[in-house]
C-alpha cells in the first residue's frame, strides 16, 4: 500500500462517525427545558427553595443570616425591656 493510499484510508476512517440515535432529541429536550425555565417567574418561591437547597454555601448563608437576625431581635427586645 502506498503512503498516499494509507493516508487517504486513514482520513476516510476518521471521517466516519456514529452518534447515538436520540442525539437530536436530547438537544431538543434541553432546549425545551430552557424555554420552560425562561417562562417561570423570577421570584418563584418554589424556585428559590430549590436554589437554596441545591447549594451548600447558600444554605449555610441563609441559616446564618436567620440566626443573626434572631439574635439581634432578642437583644433589641431585652434592651427595650431593661430600658423601661
Amino acid at each position, binding site marked *: 500500500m502506498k503512503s498516499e493510499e*494509507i493516508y487517504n484510508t*486513514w482520513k476516510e476512517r476518521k471521517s466516519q*462517525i456514529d452518534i447515538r440515535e436520540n442525539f437530536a432529541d436530547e438537544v431538543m429536550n434541553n*432546549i425545551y427545558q430552557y*424555554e420552560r425555565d425562561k417562562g417561570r417567574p423570577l421570584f418563584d418561591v418554589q424556585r428559590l427553595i430549590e436554589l437554596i437547597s441545591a447549594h451548600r454555601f447558600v444554605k449555610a448563608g441563609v441559616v446564618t443570616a436567620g440566626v443573626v437576625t434572631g439574635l439581634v431581635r432578642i437583644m433589641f427586645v431585652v434592651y427595650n425591656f431593661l430600658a423601661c
Partner: protein
Amino acid sequence: MTQETKVLHQVLEGDTESFRHIVERYEKPIVRMIRNIINNRESCEDIAQDVFFTAYRKLASFDPARSKFSTWLFTIARNKSINAMRKKRPVSMSELPHNSDAHNPSDELAEREFFDKLDAGLEALPSAQKRTFVLVEFENLSYAETAQIEGVRIGTIKSRINRAKKQLAKAMKEIRYEK
C-alpha cells in the same frame, strides 16, 4: 433566501422545533470535529450537545453578513473543544504508542498499526495545528472559512497545515511501508 436561512428565521420567531433541522443537519460534522480534536469518544457528544444548546441561546447574535451559519457553529464547537482540552490531562510523547520495529503493513494488523501511528501523530500536534488540520482535512473546510473560525489570517492556516502534514509525514516514515 436559502432553506437554512428560512429555518433560522423560523427559530428566531419562536418556532423552537425548527431548530431540530439544524441539529440533524450538523450533528455529524460537529461531533466528528470535536471527537477528532479532543480525541475522546465518550465526551464528544456531550460537548456537541452543549454546542447546539449554546447556538440556540445565542442565535440572535448570529450575523449572516459576517459569516456562514456553519462557520459560526464551527466556531462555537472550536471554543468548546479548547475548553474541554484545557480540562483534559495533556498526553506526553512518551505515552504515545511507540513502534521501534519496521513493518510492512500489507495485512490488516500492520495497517491498524499504521493508523495508530497516524492517530498518535495527530494527537501529538500542537493544539492550534491539530484544530486547523481537522477543520481543513477532515471537515473539508476552505482555508478562508478555517481562518475565520480560528480568528487568524489565511497564511497562518496554510503554515499550520504544512507543519502538521510534515509532522504526520514524519510519523509515517517511522514505519517502512514501501519496500
